[in-house]
């Protein structure tokens, strides 16, 4: 059963449409990457999947259920978590509180999952009582991911998880995302580091000006001449 299916999505922020009939799908356990130039509508597509954008036409299906009209808090309950591109932590709250907020809708014991996240991101365990606003960019990115994982989602949406990180941190982050994916969590991520992203993903989509441009497997896209010219630095 297809995990996420976006079908002919058209919409925007109330003014002119930003997305024009975008199609996209993520199969269970798959890692899918979206690349494209700045302003192509990648973030907008992520937000649209999460009920944060006005959708005029098309549909978003999650495990074949139509979630197009649901509110974000209802979508979270379906098993999708989302890490926005910017401002993705609660700055005045501690690491631990951030994780708790990620699990707001859970009423069972969240300790075991929190411990798992601390094991996965040991840095967060060291900083559990520090306020998020005083952490480094890389640490915040970990926290943002940890927050999203608190719900043990079936699908994780990541918007540029490596933006602004140093090369070592970027490698680490891709490694972690791969591990999350190996645990069976579907991943849909937007990435600027196209080369690395395409190397680890199953499939990729190229988005330009709010439209599907190319989609193919990761290796094929890496080998694609047009794509290489556009995004991979020749």
């Amino acid at each position, binding site marked *: 059963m297809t995990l996420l299916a976006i079908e002919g999505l058209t919409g925007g922020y109330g003014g002119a449409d930003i997305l024009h009939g975008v199609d996209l799908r993520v199969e269970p356990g798959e890692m899918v990457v979206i690349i494209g130039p700045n302003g192509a509508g990648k973030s907008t597509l992520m937000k649209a999947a999460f009920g*944060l954008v006005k959708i005029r036409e098309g549909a978003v299906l999650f495990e074949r259920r139509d979630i197009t009209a649901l509110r*974000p808090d209802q979508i*979270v309950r379906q098993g999708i978590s989302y890490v926005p591109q910017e*401002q993705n932590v609660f700055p*005045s*709250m501690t690491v631990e509180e951030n994780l708790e*907020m990620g699990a*707001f809708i859970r009423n069972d014991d969240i300790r075991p999952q929190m411990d798992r996240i601390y094991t996965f991101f040991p840095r967060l365990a060291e900083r559990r009582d520090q306020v998020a606003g005083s952490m480094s960019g890389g640490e915040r990115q970990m926290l943002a991911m940890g927050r999203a994982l608190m*719900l043990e989602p079936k699908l994780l949406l990541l918007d540029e998880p490596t933006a602004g990180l140093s090369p070592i941190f970027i490698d680490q982050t891709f490694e972690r995302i791969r591990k999350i994916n190996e645990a069976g969590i579907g991943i849909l991520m937007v990435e600027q580091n196209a080369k690395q992203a395409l190397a680890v993903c199953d499939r990729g989509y190229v988005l330009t000006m709010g439209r599907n441009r190319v989609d193919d497997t990761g290796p094929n896209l890496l080998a694609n001449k047009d794509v290489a010219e556009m995004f991979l630095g020749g």
Partner: protein
Amino acid sequence: MATDLLQLAIYGVVSGSILTLGAIGVSLIYGILRFAHFAHGDLMAVGAYFAFSLVAGLGFPLWASAPFAVAGTALVAVAIDQTVYRRLRRVSPIILLISSFGIAIALRSVVQLIWGPHNQVYASGIQLPWRVGDIVIKPDHVWIVLGAIVLVTALHLFLTRTKMGKAMRAMSDNMDLALVSGIPSERVIVVTWAVGGGMAAVAGIFLGMDTRLHPVMGWSLLLPVFAAAILGGIGRPYGAIAGGMVIGLAMEMSTVVIDPTYKPAVAFALMVLMLIVRPQGLFKGNP
């Protein structure tokens, strides 16, 4: 002179306690809904009069009527939000502010309609004050300060120990992220109004104990309350404590040198000074 100043400082702490309770509510609401709630002073008056009805009408002692007044005022705040503010929330914070100005006027008219335009007091007669050397301390003043300490502590525990309290801080920190984390914003907003309204009711009751009840009592306090909230960094409930104390003390101590009529001007001057040198407040607010 020294005892005079000490005496004024005591009054300052008392009015600072009242201002703090009001400013915390203003700050909480600002943090989550991003607008200056101009009807907050009049909510205080509503709380004070609710308690008055129970005291004067049913012969309740004041301490026993306070919980009912708090619940009643919280309910009024939530009802106003659900009937009016909720519909305007998506429009803009400026419209909310204007609407709350209208609500302030309407609430005051309701108070006048129900309880009349005249001064009222909870208990007539003069309380026997305690004397410590040359310092005079009224029992009511002790209750006010203790009550404020208990409430502020309770609020602190609520904000740091409960899931709902943390959700309130989360929404005030980053509204969009709170939404995508699945925090049910409407429920948190309702709780915010209940807490803010409840604190306003206590502030109103304390103000009534300290002075008297009058339909304009709340509006008159709005300026110092906002001055306290801004001084502490608006949107930062903890800053409101410091802000409330500074404004309360400054207003009372200033009477040494200037006419007491101009106490509001002192609050205003401090606020303006703060806006010039450090608009984000003592603690970083949301300018």
